């Protein structure tokens, strides 16, 4: 019950990291790969994001944006900096 509740409330106030702008600071609510169309199989994307430290509760901050179309982005995840494209970052829900 409480899980369902937190999931619902997360989806209300969360935004995908892929839509956030430079300077955004927040925490990861969930990794949601279902909407991810192109590229890797969804499960594989989820595993890779987790491997790079994108786990629920981790602090994230967008440090830099690419010069063209503000893509890719450089994200501080706890104590590491990870570069990824916005398309993949859409799977990371933050608030």
């Amino acid at each position: 019950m409480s899980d369902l509740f937190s999931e619902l409330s997360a989806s209300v106030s969360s935004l995908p990291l892929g839509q956030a702008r430079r300077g955004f600071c927040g925490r990861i609510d969930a990794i949601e790969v279902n909407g991810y169309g192109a590229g890797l199989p969804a499960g594989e994307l989820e595993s890779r994001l987790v491997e790079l430290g994108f786990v629920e509760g981790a602090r994230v901050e967008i440090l830099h944006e690419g010069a063209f179309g503000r893509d890719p982005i450089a994200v501080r995840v706890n104590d590491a900096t990870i570069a990824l494209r916005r398309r993949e970052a859409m799977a990371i829900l933050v608030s």
Partner: protein
Amino acid sequence: MTAVEPAGPWHLALVGNPNCGKTALFNALTGSRQKVANYPGVTVERKSGLFQTPSGRSVHLLDLPGTYSLRARSPDEQVTRDAVLGRLAGESPPDMLLCVADATNLRIALRLVLELKRVGRPLMLALNMIDIARKRGFEFDLDRLSAELGVPVVTSTAVRRGGVEDLIARMDGLIAMPPAAHVAAANTWTPPTSAELRATQREADRILHAAVKVPGRPDTLTGRLDGVLLHPVFGILILLAVLFVMFQAVFSWAQPAMDLIKAGFDALGGLVQANMPEGLLQSFVQNGVIAGVGSVIVFLPQILILFLFILILEDLGYLARAAFLMDRIMGGAGLHGRAFIPLLSSFACAIPGIMAARVIDNRRDRLTTILVAPLMTCSARIPVYVLIISAFVPDREVFGFVGLQGLVMFGLYAAGISSALAVSFVAKRLLWRDHPEPFMLELPDYKMPRLKSVLIGVYTRALMFLQRAGTTIFSMMVLIWFLASFPRPPEGAAEPAIEYSLAAILGRAIEPLTAPIGFDWHINVALIPGMAAREVAVAALGTVYAIEGGKEASDQIGLVLAQSWSLATALALLAWYIFAPQCASTLAVIRRETGGWHWMAVSFAYMIVLAYAGAFLTYNIAVALGAG
């Protein structure tokens, strides 16, 4: 008699995340006593070396490709997984795993340690770059960390003299442990699901929290540098400046050394010519052996300079930033952000360029880059372009201010670049249809590279080129010599010797094939020695058209060509040279770098098809427009 005699060296395998300083640690432990090779059948590099413990026990160290997990999503990571699990063919199972972790970035590394524990092999954790971490305010409770993880923990500073002594000293103790401690426990490792990865990461976070005090704010120097170096405008400008200097270095700084090497081998050849009786043996020593060895060595200056730059930039942590800045531009054509450096280097010469593709971790991206690198207009094409352009393109201005000859030259460069982008775009869709690799990589903190480690890296690259690519290049050179000089001309022959050779027989035989692209047998014959290196074709054309003086007489060659060829033929030859795989050394390096004939054959095939099509279209359009 003692019951147990230590049998051979103790096997230690290095595992760690990318950017954890594993290679620097490997270099610090083994110095120059290391071997770089490829695992059979794959493009994965195998690095191993030896070092000795204080008690004199020798330890065989295997440096495994960096990985975040044993899930093995690429051939590199499969090697790591199989080696760790002790099931890599031809490799002794490791007696112990040494997991290397960047002490300033332990979070992800600890998860890997927890995963490695499940393999059941003896395991040790090395906290690398411990000095940087302590300076930045990290505090480590090593006993607590070791107790929580259940593995011995040592500290190291790979980039400092004496920074690995603690580690080496601990080795004796670990090797001397009672045999029972060495017997691997049961392997309970299975590929983790994302839920398991999460759970392990939570456990790693808990241990990190308990044993390490992390300073509140990140590395301010890296932050400030990135503020400029990753800036949307200044970052790109600085990257272009860095690339310009690098290109300049490979292109012009290497030139004096290359000229010297060339002159040295020419002089040596001259010496042979002067002192050996004329005949087949003289020709073989002069044009086969000496010219063959020379054509290998001549690439060394470019390779050394390029890898010096690449290794410094890599160790600084800048290469990952360059990939970040270039990702969008290169990604549009289906190339990896890091492909920029190999492709740029290929303008000087495709050989260092193809070797530089090693900076790309992903195998597919690396193969795509290797495939298109030879399309970049290398410096060896310039003499051919200059010869034909100055002979056939009138030296006048168009649109009032643009030189026509320069414009054609520019067009040839542009054609090379755009065809490379097009080929990579097609390759990405044709060859790897399943799923493209997403761009995801860690941007490590900036670090001062250690000169010794960089020099070891440059040295091993050079050695590897000489040993592995050199032998293939050399044998191809001898083959080309053989084709161009066998059989010998009859006594008192009037025509140049090459006209009696296998090359001429071949050239005449394929004339029906090359007639539609406007090449007569003279050109075909010149193209065969031209396989040795593109610029050799200029001298070969001189030989075929019986012009004395070789390379120095290129003005004269131009005059003769202008009389013998139609404009359509000349343009077709230019189009041919944009694409044609006219360089045996490049093909040899592709074979070596990709670990087999397969990709060499693919490169050769697609390039020759493009060259034929390009020359065919050019010739026929030119003829239709009245230039035949």
